[in-house]
């Protein structure tokens, strides 16, 4: 219906913008890889420990990179008040939210995928449960971060000292999905004897359902003056 069409158009704009400004995308990816390197140095030389925590390093890398991607994604909208231009076209705030959130989701997914080979190289971590479940974890985790992330990045972009505010607002919020994503990813890497992957992905899915719907409902309050 109308919302889906509008969201798809906003998503197309989002992806076109990411493509046109792909230098920033490369920078975000490099930033994420840099965090992986930092972790491997910080993690000490004990390979077994590094392998054990590789899922955690992956997700902390994605989360830190997400603040860059989300902050940038919204700076673009508020810099010349493009978001007001969209609202006055008119485009419904919910469509802007879903378009941008899906855009951010794909960016985070891309950053995650780029990190996977490095995870194997640096931490000798190979997904015993196969690449399929691994991509599913990446998708679910990225989706869980991008919904509250887009909402709060919009808040931060319009308030003062935005760079401080986004992590301050976002990190406590996404703790449960980081916990779930790390546990799920770890099961994929280390093997899932008791088949708990499904339940962790279930939590991520529930988290997404709640935050994607609440985000859509509240987004008009954040963008309208």
């Amino acid at each position, binding site marked *: 219906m109308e919302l889906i069409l509008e969201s798809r158009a906003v998503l197309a704009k989002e992806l076109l913008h990411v493509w046109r400004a792909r230098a920033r995308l490369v920078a975000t990816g490099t930033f994420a890889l840099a965090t992986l390197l930092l972790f491997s140095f910080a993690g000490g030389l004990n390979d077994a420990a590094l392998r054990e925590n590789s899922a955690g390093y992956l997700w902390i890398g994605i989360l830190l990179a997400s603040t860059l991607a989300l902050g940038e994604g919204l700076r673009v909208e508020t810099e010349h008040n493009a978001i007001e231009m969209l609202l006055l076209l008119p485009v419904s705030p919910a469509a802007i939210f879903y378009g941008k959130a899906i855009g951010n989701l794909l960016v985070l997914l891309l950053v995650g995928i780029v990190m996977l080979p490095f995870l194997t190289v640096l931490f000798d971590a190979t997904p015993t449960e196969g690449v399929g479940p691994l991509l599913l974890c990446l998708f679910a985790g990225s989706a869980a971060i991008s919904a509250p992330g887009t909402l709060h990045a919009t*808040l931060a972009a319009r308030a*003062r000292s935005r760079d401080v*505010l986004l992590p301050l607002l976002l990190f*406590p*919020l996404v703790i449960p999905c980081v*916990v779930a994503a790390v546990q799920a990813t770890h099961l994929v890497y280390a093997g899932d004897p008791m088949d708990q992957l499904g339940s962790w992905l279930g939590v991520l899915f529930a988290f997404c359902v709640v935050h994607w719907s609440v985000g859509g409902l509240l987004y008009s309050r954040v963008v309208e003056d």
Partner: protein
Amino acid sequence: MKGRWELIVGAVGGLGLLAGSALGLWWAPQERFMLETGRILYVHVPTAWLSMILFTAAFVGSIGWLVKRRWGFDFLSEASVEAGVVLGCLLSVQGSIWAHWTWNTWWAWDPRLTSVAVMVLSFLGILALRSFVDDPEKRATWSATATIVAWVNVPFVYLCVKWMRSLHQGQSSVANIDPDMGKVLLLNTVAVTLVAIYFVVTRWRIANAVHQREFTE
């Protein structure tokens, strides 16, 4: 100072807390397993109960503001978040002290403790958001939005930490409550509720005064 009924409420609450603590410290029987540290319960449980209620009050205030657009709701939300954060921090400190004796670590990933700690962090972020936005109406609307999202998030925090923990350590819980202990606990809970009402109503009046000043400039 006229019509400041909450002063009486606060005073009664304070005295109640004083009496409850005294009873908790000396009169109440010793808890079978936790020995002396069991007495922390008399201040820990009521505070935990209150911080949850305060964050829920902030949630109600936020919805009220978004729907009714009346400033009283925004003051309620602001006051409840602030008091909630204060009590939440106290709770974490108490929990940490208790964990130190029970498991000899300063922080136990007990789902309840961790949920409160995460909530305190979320609402500290919202207090920061309030200070970073000048326009009162935007400040009210945005902090209301962030409060709703933070509140909705609490069950997930609890669930994830509970699952994560139950894979490693068993969960500790209080043995059945001895009737005497129960009485002291009830007294303290009522007392802390009264004190919290004093906190929120006073902070509400302060927010109201700030608002009047802001809007008469």
